[in-house]
């Protein structure tokens, strides 16, 4: 399967990820909660995957509301 260009946002905890997800849902930003890909290490096992094109929008939406650890392009 050809992987579409995605970006994942990693969070310090599952709670952070869930809080962020709620915000994205409210703002109608298409996203998916997925397990953190194997090649990326993170204490929190889940992350939010969004289209690469949306990453700026996501960062903006989360700004000041949820801290995220880092963003990785898949």
């Amino acid at each position, binding site marked *: 399967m050809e992987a579409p260009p995605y970006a994942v946002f990693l969070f310090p905890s*599952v709670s952070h*990820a*869930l809080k962020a997800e709620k915000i994205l849902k409210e703002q109608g930003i298409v996203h*998916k*909660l*997925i*397990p953190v890909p194997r090649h990326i290490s993170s204490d929190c*096992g*889940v992350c939010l995957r969004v289209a690469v094109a949306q990453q700026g929008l996501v960062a903006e939406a989360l700004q000041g509301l949820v801290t995220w650890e880092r963003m990785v392009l898949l």
Partner: protein
Amino acid sequence: MKTTVDARGLACPQPVLLAKKAIAENEEVIVLVDNEIAVENIRRLAVKTACGFSVTEKEGGVREIGLVRIGATGQAPVDAGAVAAELTCAIVPEKETGPIVVVLSDNRMGRGDDVLGDVLIRAFIHTLAQLKPLPATIICYNAGVKLAVKDSTVLDDLQQLAKAGVDILVCGTCVNYFGLGDQIAAGRISNMYDILETMAGAARLVRP
């Protein structure tokens, strides 16, 4: 010299290994086995080591195999590696190589915390779509049917699995019970007959 090896109840490749050892030390060997795979492996051993081979059906599914060295050829050195390579234990595990069936009996993974259970089931089903080999069937029952509804957070993963050839059985009784008749968007409505037959026929059942 003649000896008898009782290899009943032993897992592959034990019977053929015992037979190989015995025929290396004896002119004639009787091997008792209880499955067809052991018979086939020992038949192959006989060909490989140039032994005479006979098999007799006994009571209770037991097969009595006779191995006899044919002149000096029976003593031809056996390449252990070659014999090992010829072993076909792989066909025994019909059950191990058979279908993997995933059972989703709840719309959450594990017990203890519902919010966490929701996160986990989503991660599970997303990862399931990347499993190799894919399961043959996914069965959804009880609250598990809620995973297959239109606004399910795992709908796209289930649809991707279905597209990849995974049969998704959704318990009709459960759909009816929850009043979700018009909302199922992945898989096909099924019944207890198919669900039970599929589970009983699985090599492995995987439950989140």
